[in-house]
């Protein structure tokens, strides 16, 4: 799909170990998928049998892992030249690209069919679409074609909580959409902050990151704009059935800190950033990880607190978007 991709023969260094196949599934990404899907599943109105819930989480994670393997198969040439990814199983010569592709395709089919059997057709369709979106739309097409790759590709990471929600309810609601938007809008500033201080890698791999195509000042502006655009979605979630005063208070503080960090990134010029080894950019990147984690913990906390009658009655006053 792209003329940048070159054929590289990876030297096989020996038989792969079990952990190399696990590494193909991107376990760290899977852990985030498990966490956000679990939150979506737990806060959705209605209930699943615990084993159905467990199966749903496992197969959503497996679907995410399958798309990770397909991504590693397609992007092996890029991974080989980037320091951060050079030790992945394919460029390291542990697993052949064909093995990774086969594993990805097999696990994609298995996870979608099993999620359908465990929960419902819509959840399975969303999982299939997520895998397609990440493997084909993002990896094969956008990543090498446009500097907006991160923006659109972020959708793939945003689907898991929606799938968790749909696994229980069988339908898409405002809450599911807001959880989606929270991750979708968070992804660009998170990755662009990373791209600012990992500048050599993407340039070397000829991936059209915003830092390479539009320059670092434009990237800093984009971080600020996206962080500001994230705020209304993060706060709106607090006024739905899954929100409440605890979520709102935390979301307000977290968004103000994130916005302050994005402002600090925008305000700096390259010379200052380079002089202190991108201290602010690294700090904002680290904070963005906590930002997302705490938002989802807060959603979970609201779900738990809703069992307290006194709190539930008080929290109802905040849920003005519940009518939708």
């Amino acid at each position: 799909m792209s003329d940048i991709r070159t054929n590289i023969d990876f030297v096989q260094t020996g038989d792969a170990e079990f952990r190399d196949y696990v590494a193909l599934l991107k376990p760290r990404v899977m852990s985030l998928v498990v966490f956000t899907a679990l939150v979506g599943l737990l806060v959705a109105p209605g209930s699943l049998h615990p084993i159905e819930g467990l199966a749903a989480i496992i197969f959503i994670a497996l679907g995410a892992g399958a798309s990770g393997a397909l991504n590693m198969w397609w992007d092996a040439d890029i991974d080989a030249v980037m320091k951060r990814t050079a030790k992945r199983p394919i460029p390291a010569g542990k697993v052949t690209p064909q093995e990774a592709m086969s594993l990805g395709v097999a696990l994609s089919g298995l996870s979608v069919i099993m999620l359908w059997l465990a929960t419902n057709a819509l959840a399975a369709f969303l999982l299939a679409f997520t895998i397609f979106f990440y493997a084909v739309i993002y990896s094969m097409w956008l990543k090498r074609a446009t500097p907006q790759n991160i923006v659109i590709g972020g959708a793939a990471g945003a689907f898991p909580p929606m799938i968790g929600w749909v696994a229980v309810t069988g339908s898409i609601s405002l809450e599911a959409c807001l959880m989606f938007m929270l991750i979708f809008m968070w992804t660009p500033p998170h990755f662009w902050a990373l791209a600012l201080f990992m500048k050599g890698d993407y340039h070397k791999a000829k991936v059209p990151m915003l830092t390479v195509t539009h320059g670092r000042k434009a990237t800093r502006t984009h971080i600020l704009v996206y962080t500001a655009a994230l705020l209304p979605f993060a706060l709106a979630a607090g006024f739905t059935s899954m929100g409440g005063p605890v979520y709102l208070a935390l979301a307000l503080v977290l968004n103000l800190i994130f916005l302050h960090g994005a402002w600090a990134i925008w305000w700096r010029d390259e010379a200052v950033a380079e002089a202190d080894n991108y201290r602010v950019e690294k700090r904002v990147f680290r904070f963005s990880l906590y930002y997302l984690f705490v938002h989802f913990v807060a959603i979970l906390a609201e779900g738990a607190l809703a069992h307290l009658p006194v709190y539930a009655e008080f929290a109802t006053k905040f849920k003005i978007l519940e009518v939708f």
Partner: protein
Amino acid sequence: MAITREHDLHKRRSGRNIGLAVVLLAFIALVFGLTIAKVSGGNALQAFDHSYRPVLDPDNVRFQQR
């Protein structure tokens, strides 16, 4: 280097085989659990044991009361 029983290749393959066995057993257990959960619908399962049991007869009042 001669391929012996102690060769590193055997260790790697053994690790892969054990890993795959564990994954397959876990998958079987999950599908079994899922089947029980789907079939029982949250209620206790009762098997047919070749004699008439009113509690298993949908037309019987004891079935409707359970």
